[in-house]
């Protein structure tokens, strides 16, 4: 995977061909740092504590209301605009199927839904769990032939199961041959990697959101806090240095300082840790922002960012059962307990026990009734799966 330099960073919302995706600068360094930390934790039996400029007990969680203003949900509609532009520019108008791939929390379903709304294109419905487990092709028949169509989340159309593959194989065969009309498919990067092997979708154009650098993350977080209107200054608890400022007066000073010294180092570290994925970085930003416990002025905007690496990480000696659960969840973009039991080679009871243990450790979180790898654990889970030779996503 290529890495690019900060200097060449471009627009925060760049939609690029899948093979043009680059991880941010220092991604490899971030992985080594994580490995070293895991090794130290494993050898010493306790979490290796790094020197902190500000101790965590001096800080407190932000109230939900304040957090909602500081870090509102990501609006994916600009990405839909970029995707539409990319589809026009890349001359893929005649392709029967175009994929838009993002990693977990990358927002592909929202982007495709926005795109479909903008283009007045019909979204195809996902099959039911029963249809998937029975290998029914009814949902494929329901798709019919449309001039243009969109499918927001392909991971909802398959199960890693002999029956669960039948429908998606038939659907992709029809879609790739153009029998369904022209469509845009949103797909989780892990599901895409699996379907490439299991079904074979080589040759269909695939786009993704380019990985973000620290500078782009800084710009993005500054712009969403109070819609970019109010002042915001964030310091790192690790270094005590300023990570971000959106105060108009201070911004100029910061820009000046940026030329002299390398700022955004902490956010570059975060970008590298998250492999440039905005969705994952957004969760870090939202969950690791703190304010001073003793704050005299309630309107003061001084905030602190906890160290990105001190998150819920898997121990290096994690067993096979836990890894199989994590891998299954990633390949399906999250699963309910019933479906999880269907795709694992052990009983539902064992699968549930493993899932409960991971949820207790904070490695899993529940979103829309589905269990998935928590955003703050994603980087370490991906690295661990790669180190154990499991199939990993291309992003």
């Amino acid at each position, binding site marked *: 995977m290529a890495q690019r330099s900060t200097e060449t960073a471009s627009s925060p919302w760049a939609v690029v061909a899948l093979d043009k995706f680059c991880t941010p600068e220092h991604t490899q360094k971030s992985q080594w740092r994580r490995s070293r930390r895991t090794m130290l934790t494993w050898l010493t039996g306790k979490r290796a504590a790094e020197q902190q400029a500000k101790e965590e007990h001096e800080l407190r969680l932000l109230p939900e209301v304040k957090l909602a203003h500081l870090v509102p949900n990501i609006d994916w509609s600009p990405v839909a605009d970029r995707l539409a532009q990319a589809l026009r520019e890349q001359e893929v108008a005649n392709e029967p199927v175009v994929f838009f791939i993002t990693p977990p929390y990358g927002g592909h379903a929202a982007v495709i839904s926005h795109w479909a709304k903008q283009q007045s294109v019909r979204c195809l419905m996902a099959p039911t769990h029963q249809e998937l487990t029975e290998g029914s092709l009814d949902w494929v028949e329901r798709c019919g032939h449309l001039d243009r169509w969109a499918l927001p989340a392909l991971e909802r159309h398959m199960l890693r199961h002999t029956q669960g593959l039948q429908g998606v194989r038939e659907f992709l065969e029809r879609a790739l041959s153009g029998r369904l009309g022209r469509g845009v498919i949103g797909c989780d990067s892990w599901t895409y990697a699996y379907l490439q092997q*299991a079904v074979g979708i080589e040759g269909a154009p695939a786009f993704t959101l380019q990985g973000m650098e620290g500078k782009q993350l800084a710009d993005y977080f500054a712009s969403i806090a109070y819609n970019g209107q109010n002042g915001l200054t964030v310091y790192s608890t690790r270094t005590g240095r300023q990570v971000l400022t959106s105060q108009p007066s201070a911004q100029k000073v910061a820009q000046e300082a940026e030329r002299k010294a390398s700022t955004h180092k902490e956010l570059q570290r975060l970008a590298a840790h998250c492999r440039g994925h905005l969705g994952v970085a957004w969760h870090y930003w939202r969950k690791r922002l703190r304010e001073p416990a003793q704050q005299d002025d309630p309107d003061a905007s001084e905030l602190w960012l906890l160290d990105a690496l001190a998150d819920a990480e898997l121990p290096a000696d994690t067993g096979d059962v836990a890894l*199989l659960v994590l891998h299954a969840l990633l390949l399906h973009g999250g699963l309910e307990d019933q479906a999880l039991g269907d795709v694992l080679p052990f009983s539902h009871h064992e699968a549930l026990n493993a899932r409960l243990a991971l949820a207790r450790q904070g490695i899993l979180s529940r979103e829309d009734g589905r269990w998935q790898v928590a955003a703050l654990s994603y980087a370490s889970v991906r690295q661990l799966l790669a180190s*154990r030779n499991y199939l990993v996503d291309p992003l």
Partner: protein
Amino acid sequence: MDDQKQYARLFNDMDSQTFITLGIILASVILLIIASQRGLNWLANRLHGQVRFRIFALVPLTRLLILLTALAIAVPIVIEPSLRNMVTLLGAIGLAIGFALKDYVSSLIAGVVSAIELPYRPGDWVDIEGTYGEVKHVGMRTVEIQTPDDDLVAMPHLKLWDSAVYNANNGGTSLQCVANFYLHPEHEADGVRKALRDVALTSAYLKFDQPIIVVAEEKPWGTHYRIRAYPVDPRQQFLFITDLTVRGKQVLSRAGIKPALLPPDAALDTPKGVPDIHRRR
């Protein structure tokens, strides 16, 4: 009288200081070997993938290096290391080995060869003379193999000279597994081939960077199908085969395909000379 002087010159003067030095060298060698072997095994057992095998491969090599270093230090203390002395000493040792300790020393030498040629190393799955299992420890004289039945078999390195060593993963993480299906001759073979391939593709244990092959072979009693595929980790081989077999049977049964029924006096033919590892897998 002259002969006595000549033999006396072979060895250096041995005083108490020399014995203490030799004792310290011996104790250090024992301690270093124990520490390096336990340490490296401990570390490798906590790692996964290729790194695990690389560290395992260091175990016998480290021991060999420690022994050679100790010999290089100890020999000049005991004897005057001239050509004549060395020839005399080696001749005497050779004579003793030839008569009394031939097999023992042959195993030791084969142990040195195994540390250099690496026909097996800890973590490998090997079959030596019908004993199949994971190499747990490569000692000086024997290699310890843990069988799937949890027996620990100590196999002398001596076997290296005249026995075939079947190494299923050869220091890597790729180990081919075979799941067998024996089906009634009346069925739609192409459908079975695709279904069995899907069974492998949907296994949680499957390693994707290796091929999946479904082999069909016609027999007088029916059709013998084999799924050849690789698990993510060699240690998952039995779980992987079980998963393929259980789900394969489910899929075939759902498709209404009957298993082959052998006549009571028929036995499955296994070619002679094929080791147990291949029959089992």
